[in-house]
């Protein structure tokens, strides 16, 4: 098995799918000549040429719409948002066209498209560039939403997303592009809609995704030092959500924390909580807690940004709280 960075796993997934299927193309700002703002498309222009690796001007609504229109014609676009923060200006295209065209045409047209790019905060980019977009997209029927945290998951799930006949929102992280991990040399895919237990444990279930995964794993390490065995579930797919895996775990641990990189109000975190309290009510020994961004726009200053973020220490405090040990 090769050791790859997440950015390379993403690049390889796109490359393999582009080799496999001529209908697949990549479009976005700086994806071609610049090799991607975060180098996730390194070498693809050279390999596939400007017909299939297309630099756009800064018109997120325009090129999202072009992707949707091309998908309706049978092509399979991958649309890169330089970051998902910039998808706010394309929100209508995703919510009203990508998500609804199959439905509103009664199945005459489909929109097999992937929107991908880094999501949520990076480091000291300020309030407009530090936002998580899963609460908006996961809310909408007609979309699938994925968030990845390892090279293995990134490659396997991106390949599935590209092959999927539905519109898929694929969330990466700027801060995690260099994270390394094993990736099989042979071809593989990971089914959309399956969570992954990243660490087993029996005392507390921590449900997480995306940037929350490494924080949760460190939380589990800290907890282990205090004799607490945390089970870390990486949802991987946020919509549709693999709630069975979560419930099975909670029925074992009887306690849960949801740890994620987004503001608290509503969103995916609350969906997890609502489902757990509904489906495992009699098994819960404590309320489900969330550990996430503070409910503030991101400040630029380093010291303030650190305070806003969820950390392993805060995760541990939440874990202890649901154990009534703190």
């Amino acid at each position: 098995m090769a050791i790859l960075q997440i950015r390379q796993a993403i690049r390889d997934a796109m490359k393999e799918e582009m080799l496999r299927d001529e209908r697949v193309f990549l479009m976005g700002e700086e994806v071609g000549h610049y090799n991607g703002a975060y180098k996730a498309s390194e070498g693809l222009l050279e390999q596939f040429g400007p017909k299939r690796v297309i630099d756009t001007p800064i018109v997120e609504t325009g090129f999202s719409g072009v992707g949707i229109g091309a998908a309706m014609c049978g092509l399979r676009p991958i649309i890169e948002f330089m970051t998902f923060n910039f998808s706010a200006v394309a929100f209508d295209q995703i919510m009203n066209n990508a998500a609804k065209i199959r439905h509103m045409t009664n199945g005459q047209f489909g929109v097999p498209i992937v929107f991908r790019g880094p999501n949520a905060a990076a480091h000291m980019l300020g309030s407009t560039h530090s936002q998580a977009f899963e609460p908006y997209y996961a809310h909408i029927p007609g979309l699938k939403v994925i968030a990845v945290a390892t090279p293995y998951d990134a490659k396997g799930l991106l390949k599935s997303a590209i092959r999927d006949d539905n519109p898929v929102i694929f969330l990466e992280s700027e801060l995690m592009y260099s994270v390394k991990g094993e990736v099989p040399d042979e071809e593989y895919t990971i089914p959309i809609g399956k969570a992954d237990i990243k660490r087993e444990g029996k005392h507390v279930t921590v449900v997480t995704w995306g940037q929350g995964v490494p924080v949760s794993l460190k939380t589990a390490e800290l907890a282990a030092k205090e004799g607490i065995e945390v089970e870390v579930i990486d949802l991987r797919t946020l919509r549709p959500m693999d709630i069975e895996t979560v419930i099975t775990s909670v029925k074992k641990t009887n306690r849960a924390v949801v740890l994620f990189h987004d503001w608290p109000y509503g969103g995916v975190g609350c969906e997890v909580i609502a489902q757990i309290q509904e489906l495992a009510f009699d098994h819960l020994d404590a309320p489900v807690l969330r550990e996430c961004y503070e409910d503030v726009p991101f400040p630029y200053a380093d010291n303030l940004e650190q305070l806003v973020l969820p950390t392993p220490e805060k995760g541990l405090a939440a874990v202890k709280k649901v154990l009534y040990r703190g």
Partner: protein
Amino acid sequence: MTAAGPTEVSYEDQLKAAFKDQSKDDILRDYLAMLRIRRFEEAAARAYTRGKISGFLHLYIGQEAIAVATQQAIQPQDRVVSAYRTHGFALALGSDPKACAAELFGKAAGLVGGIGGSMHFFDKAHQLWGGYAIIGNHIPVAAGHAFASKYTGDGAVTLVFMGDGAVGIGPVHEGMTLAGIWKLPIVFVVENNQYSMGTPLSRTLPVEDITSRAAGYGFKSDRFHVTSVAETRDRIGAAVKRAREDNQPTLLELITYRFRGHSMSDPAKYRQKEEVETWRMQDPLERTLRALQLLHGFDEAALEQLDGEVIAEVDAAYEFADKAPPPLPEARFANILVGE
């Protein structure tokens, strides 16, 4: 239209001149094609009043020549993308009037299974690629169809229609920008019917001539009053040819008029009777009818017989729609995601 005065005379002469180069068959064909749309929509308005149709119903009455001309200007592989004022395109392109009426009634046999209603007519088999209800958000999508044509080499041209009220919104600008940079095989058509809802052009446009924007995108442009199918077809056709042969996008402004309110809930109090009457003189359907009378001797009886045939077809469509069953309850879960 009854009093004969000096204007009336010159109107007739002008009409004769305008139609003299067309064959009787062609004029008759255009007349019937427009009439079918008009009768269909008049029936829709009645059905709406009787509560058989709900939601928003935007009628195309006055603009029919554009849809008919479009159908004549394109080839079978081409695509027509419209906003929400779409019944005319569907009928002109060959959609089954029964399926159209059933869609308005929210029935399973509707064009899109009763799921979309008036604003979301789609009929892929008849080149109708929408039916979009958010102003301007179909323009990038249509640019995407044209992009796909260039990608696959399918030789198709995409024609995308929007109202005068849509030209200020961002997605229109972005779609046009991309079509301009990438030289896509596309024709942008503004159906300038003088109003966006209750708002006249003067409060919507910074300058009167919408085609003044073409230069900024590197487009060709054309701008004219729609008074007959033939001229409209030829001028749309020239743009289609540029798109197909040279990947040269065109911005067309077609000056027209809607005789009804914006939708069924709009009594259109914001305009004067005189204004409406002036435009009636230019109504392509009315003009074509008069051409049949003046140039080809169609009398009242002949015209009434034609009308009767059209009305019979329309009535049958609405009867079908009325009797057709609603969608099955399970239909609400269909076509959201596939493959599950």
